[in-house]
């Protein structure tokens, strides 16, 4: 009798659970297709090899963690230089009043840095934001043109559903591939209460992990359905036309990029920054928008001009002009008294770099020491004395 009742409850439990998960998956969150294993850039929060788009997805999801923040944050924003060189766990002991975390994402430009900041400001409670510190750790390379790192390849979507028109940032692409509720620009997300969005993100994180253990990707079908729901009419028309399959573009960086000399790597950097005398104007505007937004939210902002090896500094055509440009961009905000600019371009010896701008794993403690040494005097003590 006991077993019969327990068995019946178990069957009902499974049926109800499947139904509930199905409904929630369709409406709140579901896994997308597994991304290609092709590695583009090393970096990201977990120092794993992943695609830019997957890092964008991770950033969108991880920002949910800030919703539960109960202490002031010291958040690092930036690109691969910041992601590889500034490790929150190594900096934490230097800032005991703060929770140190990083939303730096490899391959980012200023548009993506601002998107990361948008996510943080959306997620974290306003009272916490007012006590928090934003460390915008950048270099001239972060001001690259918007289309430089666009993959143009979405493995979870039929090729005919590729976005057309203006290139979009990796975070935007990741957002488009995720359920509507996770896309910061989607109207569904805009009208949803924050708690629901955070819950959806948390659920989505688990879905992604479960995905690795499934023999086939159930989320792919769901992803396509939601893509269909929210895509533009011309894209739907494209899908119906059954046009020729567009082959994926070649990877932006060569597979053996890390084995190249600094001078050879610099050649790529020069190419993606363009031949102009100054960093991209549009990205400059994005930088000032980022500063304005952070300061308006009450955060203390520290802009760090990131360390670079000597050979890079000497050979980069934009490096010399970037310092005065950065100063000019920052000057209007200095009067707020809540902004600091520090130049660490020459703070580390060449031996601490693995390539043209990233930290050597064994030098991470030294990188952390330099950052703590320079940031500590600027980080204001908390008024509550915590």
């Amino acid at each position: 009798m006991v077993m019969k009742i327990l068995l019946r409850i178990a069957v009902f439990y499974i049926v109800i659970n499947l139904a509930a998960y199905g409904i929630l998956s369709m409406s709140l969150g579901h896994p997308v297709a597994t991304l290609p294993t092709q590695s583009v850039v090393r970096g990201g929060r977990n120092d794993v090899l992943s695609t830019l788009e997957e890092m964008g997805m991770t950033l969108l999801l991880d920002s949910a963690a800030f919703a539960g923040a109960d202490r002031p944050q010291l958040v690092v924003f930036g690109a691969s230089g910041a992601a590889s060189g500034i490790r929150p766990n190594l900096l934490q002991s230097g800032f005991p009043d703060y929770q140190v975390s990083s939303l730096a994402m490899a391959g980012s430009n200023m548009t993506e840095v601002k998107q990361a900041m948008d996510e943080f400001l959306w997620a974290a409670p306003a009272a916490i934001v007012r006590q928090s510190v934003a460390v915008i750790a950048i270099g001239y390379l972060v001001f690259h043109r918007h289309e430089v790192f666009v993959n143009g390849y979405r493995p979870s979507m039929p090729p005919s559903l590729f976005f057309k028109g203006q290139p979009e940032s990796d975070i935007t692409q990741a957002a488009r591939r995720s359920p509507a509720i996770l896309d910061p620009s989607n109207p569904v997300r805009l009208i949803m209460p924050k708690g629901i969005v955070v819950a959806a993100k948390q659920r989505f994180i688990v879905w992604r992990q479960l995905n690795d253990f499934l023999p086939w990707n159930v989320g792919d079908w769901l992803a396509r359905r939601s893509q269909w729901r929210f895509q533009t009419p011309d894209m739907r028309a494209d899908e119906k036309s059954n046009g020729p399959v567009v082959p994926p573009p070649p990877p932006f960086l060569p597979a053996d990029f890390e084995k190249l000399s600094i001078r050879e790597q610099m050649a790529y950097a020069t190419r993606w920054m363009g031949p102009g005398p100054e960093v991209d104007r549009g990205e400059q505007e994005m930088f000032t928008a980022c500063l304005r937004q952070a300061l308006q939210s009450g955060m203390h902002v520290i802009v760090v001009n990131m360390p670079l090896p000597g050979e890079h500094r000497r050979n980069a055509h934009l490096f010399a002009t970037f310092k005065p440009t950065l100063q000019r961009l920052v000057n209007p905000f200095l009067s707020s008294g809540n902004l600091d600019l520090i130049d660490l371009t020459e703070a580390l010896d060449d031996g601490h770099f693995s390539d043209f701008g990233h930290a050597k794993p064994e030098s991470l403690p030294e990188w952390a020491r330099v950052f703590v040494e320079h940031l500590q005097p600027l980080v204001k003590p908390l008024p509550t004395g915590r």
Partner: protein
Amino acid sequence: MTINSLGFLAFVAIAAAFFHLAPGRWRYRVVLPLVSVAFLAFTASSFWGLITTVGFVAALVAATGIIVRYRRSGVMALIVVAILLIYCWLKGYTLFAWLPFATQMPATIGMAYMLIRGLQLIVDAREDKQLRPGLLDTFSFLTAWPCLVSGPVQRYQEFAAQSVGMASYRLNEQVFLEALGRMARGWFCVLVLGDIAKHFWLGLKAVAYEGVYPLAFGGSQLAFLVYVYADFSGYTDIVIGAGRLVGLKLPENFNRPFEARSFLEFWSRWHMTMSNWFKTYVYNPVLRLLATRWPAPAAANVLASIAFFVTFFLVGMWHGTTGAFAVVGLLLGLGASVNQLYRGAIRRLLGKQAFARLSAHVLYGMAAKGLTFACLCVAIIPLGMQEDEMRAAVGRYGITGLMISQLFVFLVMAPTALVHLPTLQAPRSMAGKCFVIALTIVAIEMYVFLFSAADGRFFYQQY
């Protein structure tokens, strides 16, 4: 191991399995005490906490043995005083902090409940010569695992009657489903409803302490009351369900307390077993004593209000060891005695029938309910606050702020007098009951999965 953990679920399953696999005559004599000892060991905060609790149980068992042998009032008085002193010492009451090691005693589980069960047994054993519990009976009664942590407070006579039937107790389909359903409902109350209310309580409390926000302060008091209700009634459901699996039918502890329209009515609906205990073993003797000293019928109402004051003051003191609980006791006592004085006076003034008509009036009902909860929320403020928080709140809000916050509670609760929630009927078929249990489990799982719980501890466990 806490009551709302998976560990407890596993413990219940193993305990029930042992109980039903054991020969009938062993169930009460061997399985129940052994499982209770194991439960004590699993729930104890530390080794010394376990030793302290066991020591206290031993003292209660010895005291019961003495009173069964020497049924004299003088002996009973001595024993009761000694037990109370030992209890206050072990619990570390501020008043007894001067006693050696009083402030270094390890945390214990369920001692407050053991105390009132033990005192009930001592008093009843002296008065009823038929009541002769043996050492094992007393031990099993005091430590019965389903109601060890926080009740419900079962009388020994009921426990003894049920223990007789344990040998032949067999689970049938209806009882098993009822037990599972009750436990699932309990976990839902604790883990979902209680947690939601706790989030509201903590959030509103944080807002209330950031500045002077009387509405947030009032809201936090109501949220706290809802949280404690969901937590405690959920706990009671869990242990009643667990008890059913091993042949114990524990008494109900709640009867829709949010429908109460007076302070005294609230306490006849909330934590009913404790209220009944205090009524039987404190209120009645105190009233009898006062009536013997001042037998005039005109003084009856005043004497009853004094007895209520003493009783509810002790209820407050029983909840905790610090001065804050004395404040709770004073406020509860004040509320109860004023309620009794008003009830007597208005009945005398209007007469019983007119008073009944007045009570049935919608506006009177709304006002009475609003006032009841406004007063009640004030009285239990110290239960949900640290002493320094309380001092800061009193300093910041003052009388005016407190009045506004209680007015808010009044305005929120008064309209609820118009609402009468129907009792949900459980499905009759086995499949329907299984479906409801599975649905409850899924709801709990999804909530726990989606939202991080504020804190999984059972609130009343601290008492």
